[in-house]
């Protein structure tokens, strides 16, 4: 485990971003986090568009995706990723406030790799984020072409 994988965090709420980053910081997982503020930005990152034309050519090791996003919502982002041959291998973890069964079913149908409901309790939240970060960015072997341990 020489390096950790890059995490693409797609989250519109700055407070959630801060809490997530804080949780990841505690375990030194925050350095490789790229934050996209909406669905469009996330797709721009993945397709080297907009601000991300110059980004490095590896895909993130994991994508933490909120569902309720401005412009393009999380389910749409998920759908585009999973239907694109070049991106479909990127592990996507839905990280959402909603416990709605409908969202869960749709996400799994679209091929999501994990579905996590953000706990209200901060300790649980931190634990969840930490475990996600550790698992996807450190333990999990990402598909070839991802940032990190090739």
């Amino acid at each position: 485990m020489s390096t950790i994988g890059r995490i693409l965090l797609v989250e519109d709420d700055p407070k959630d971003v801060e809490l997530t980053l804080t949780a990841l910081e505690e375990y030194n997982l925050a350095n490789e986090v790229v934050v996209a503020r909406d669905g469009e930005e996330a797709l721009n990152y993945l397709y080297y568009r907009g601000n991300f034309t110059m980004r490095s050519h590896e895909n993130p090791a994991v994508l933490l995706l909120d569902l309720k996003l401005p412009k393009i919502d999380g389910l749409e982002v998920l759908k585009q990723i999973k239907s694109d041959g070049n991106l479909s291998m990127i592990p996507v973890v839905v990280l959402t406030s909603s416990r709605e069964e409908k969202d869960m079913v749709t996400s799994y149908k679209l091929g999501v790799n994990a579905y996590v409901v953000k706990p209200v309790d901060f300790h649980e939240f931190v634990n969840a984020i930490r475990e996600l970060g550790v698992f996807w960015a450190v333990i999990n072997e990402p598909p070839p072409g991802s940032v990190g341990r090739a």
Partner: protein
Amino acid sequence: MQWERQLPKPLSAIQGYGLAVVCVSVSFAVALFLDRHHFSTVSQPLFLLAIAIVAWYAGSGPAALAVVLSGLVNDYFFIPPLYSFYITRDDVPHFVIFILVALLLSWFASIRRRVERALLQSREDLKREVAERTQQASLLNLTHDTIFVRDMSDVITYWNRGAQELYGWTPEEAIGKQAHELLHAVFPVQIDSIRAELLDSGRWEGEVEKTKSDGTRVVVASRWSLRRDDQMRPAAILETNNDITERKRREQEIRTLNEDLQKRGTELAAINKELEAFAYSVSHDLRAPLRHMVGFTELLQKHAAPVLNEKSHRYVGIILEAAKRMGDLIDDLLAFSRIGRTETHKKSVSLEQLVREALSEVRHETEGRNIEWKVGALPACYGDGSMLRLALINLISNAAKFTRTRPKAEIEIGSTDQKPDQVVVFVRDNGVGFDMKYSDKLFGVFQRLHPHDTFEGTGIGLATVQRIIHRHGGRVWAESQVDSGATFYFSLSKSGGG
């Protein structure tokens, strides 16, 4: 009948020949009488008259006898030489003319008799046919169905009692009228295509709107049958009608009701969708700030711990606790609203199995407590397993909660059979109970009968139970006395029918 008096009965053979003898005898007597009084040469017309009478009334056989007798008597008594059958040469033409006239008379009479016989025969035929037709017509009159016959130019030729009852016109009024004009028939399709079908297949049926004599409209199921004559030409149409106005009205009513129902269904679906959107936004947007409150308060607690005094720590604790409670409320409320929104998947389920599952869920809440569980016999019932399990969990965990102050809690779960197709399940405890005067508040959302610091809870559990049982068509109620336990009941259908 009129004609029976006009035609005399034919005479029997004896009567006929007798008449011949009598007539000739009478003519002879009259001729003899006149001859004595010097009226000669009247004998021949007299005998011809006799022959004519015989031929007319008795037919050709007796007429022939009369000719022979008249010839002989006339020759013997009146044609010289008298009292001899000898005929002089001069008398031959005389005699021949007599015979020819007599034969002519007989011939006319026989023709007349033949005509009379034929007439009688056809009269008999006619009588039979009339009787037959009358009987058929009276049979058709017996039926309640409306039957009438129209000729090919649509003129009514027969009209039964059923037709009179349905449409109000008597046969006298209806027969001879144009059927479609009389009844103002409105056909479902072009009349030409009906005629084409009738001529093609010999029958047609459909629903026709008609008007009664009093002006009211009726819808009838109409069946037409085509009658053809000996040359296979279309001759008449037999039409039977059944009044289906009431049925059509009910069908229309059902259609209207269905449309209403559909509209209501659509409205409900829209409301449901709105509710769903509401719940969705609640679950997202209400939980996020809560999470931030908790998250940042915890961060504050962590970062500022050294500078916070005891009171501040307590305040921070209260903030966290309140936020957690709000989180629970939102979760419960969402679960509650989900019960109303999701479809129930009903099938036969074992209540015993459900209670076992519910007990294992509640077990961790009751660890270390002295609880005596009693589970009675429970039948199978018809319902949504996961919903009913949730209802049981709520009731059982309530029972566990409100017996917490008891050194030894007793919780009993069982069932009673009151109606054949219904089961009543109860959960009884020896807990703190409640005052029955607040029982109407028991099942309301956010309604609580105990202070929060004594017995925690969101006040949604029993509302959830009620909603679940109501969705199963059942009833839920409770009995209690303060400080002597409570019993909660709910009824369920045992099979899918109820």
